[in-house]
């Protein structure tokens, strides 16, 4: 299939798969608390229901920014998730598209942030300042961990080149190189903050600031924001699988799975990582305060990602 058609079909695929991932996350979270939980297709029902509700824009809000930001956030994160997905299928990449994907995911977070503060609500202003601190905290280790890929062994920042290196080595990057393992750990530690899950869902805390940046959003805007959040968590877990844990590489040379098989295996691994990094921390930890979260991110993940760059330069 040619690239343009795949990219076009990837948008509805991302929409459906990321909402299914969110449904599984909610169901597993409920079962761990001895509850029944919503059905797995509940996010689809929520999305459709929210579009039937009234569009309310507060009087004190800057209405153009307020109404535009959810759309920007949703569009950015859907595109950011569609790119790795289509790369796996078509086996080609644009040069430097890893940087494009990271930029789109960051833009989605920042669009949410700006939208929250433009609502004119004091809770929105508090959520905005918290989210700014969080973005500074988690983006730095994430980007430095990705930079380690630019050195040994991949020597490039294009997604399919990293995948091709893993296929040639017949094992995922995290299992064969120490720098890969350390970078993967740093990246995984940053995912709960980027996906806004407890213990790092501080900008969006329900009991402290009434949902912070989401406080004035309802109706179709809220539907787009929930879609943006679901697709950006899907994008992050899929990115981790593509870059560091490409499991179809284990089967290379033994059995040929075909494009469909590769994709399904990647999605299954992405689901497993989502359960590990988003659902389990959400169930097992309490929420931290902003000062403590900031200190945490600037100590452990930063050290790990800098170590991964150093190891990668040394060739390990």
């Amino acid at each position, binding site marked *: 299939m040619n690239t343009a058609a795949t990219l076009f079909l990837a948008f509805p695929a991302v929409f459906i798969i990321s909402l299914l991932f969110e449904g599984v996350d909610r169901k597993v979270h409920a079962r761990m608390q001895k509850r*029944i939980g919503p059905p797995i297709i509940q996010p689809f029902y929520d999305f459709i229901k929210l579009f039937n509700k009234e569009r309310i824009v507060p009087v004190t809000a800057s209405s153009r920014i307020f109404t535009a930001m959810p759309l920007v956030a949703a569009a950015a994160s859907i595109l950011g998730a569609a790119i790795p997905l289509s790369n796996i299928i078509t086996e080609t990449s644009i040069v430097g598209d890893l940087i494009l994907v990271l930029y789109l995911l960051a833009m989605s977070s920042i669009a949410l942030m700006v939208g929250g503060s433009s609502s004119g609500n004091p809770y929105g202003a508090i959520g905005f300042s918290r989210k700014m601190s969080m973005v500074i905290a988690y983006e730095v280790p994430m980007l430095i961990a990705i930079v380690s890929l630019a050195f040994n062994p991949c020597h490039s920042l294009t997604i399919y080149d990293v995948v091709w290196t893993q296929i040639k080595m017949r094992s995922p990057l995290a299992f064969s190189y120490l720098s890969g393992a350390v970078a993967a750990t740093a990246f995984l530690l940053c995912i709960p903050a980027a996906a806004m899950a407890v213990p790092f869902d501080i900008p969006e805390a329900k009991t402290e600031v009434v949902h912070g940046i989401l406080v004035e959003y309802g109706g179709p805007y809220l539907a787009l924001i929930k879609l943006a959040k679901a697709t950006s968590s899907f994008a992050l877990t899929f990115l981790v699988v593509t870059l560091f844990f490409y499991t179809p590489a284990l089967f290379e040379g033994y059995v040929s799975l075909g494009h469909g098989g590769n994709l399904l295996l990647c999605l299954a691994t992405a689901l497993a990582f989502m359960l590990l990094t988003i659902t389990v921390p959400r169930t097992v930890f309490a929420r931290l305060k902003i000062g403590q979260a900031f200190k945490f991110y600037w100590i452990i993940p930063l050290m790990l990602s800098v170590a991964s760059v150093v190891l990668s330069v040394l060739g390990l």
Partner: protein
Amino acid sequence: MKLGVILRDALRSLFRKPVTVQYLTKAGEMVPVPERYRGKIIYDKEACIGCLLCIRTCPSGVITATEEKKVKFNIARCIFCGQCAETCPKDAIKLGSDFEMATHEKDELIIQ
């Protein structure tokens, strides 16, 4: 340093049945009603002697006297304390186990 202490219990609950009782969404599922439960009032009209002592002890004004020297209960106001059942010298009032009393007709809530 204890971290993630509740993980063991969470994983165990993941593989067991949930504790929710699906009352009304699945037919026939209900938690059994205890025997001392104070539900809808059951009034024995023959045993009533019309002493009207229950009216004096009712906290919410549920009971009113009728012309034929008996009483009438408006259980829309009732708080189900059971004081009338205790006060009645002839045991004409009992509180049963019925608690599903929601209705569209206000007349169904008058017991005589």
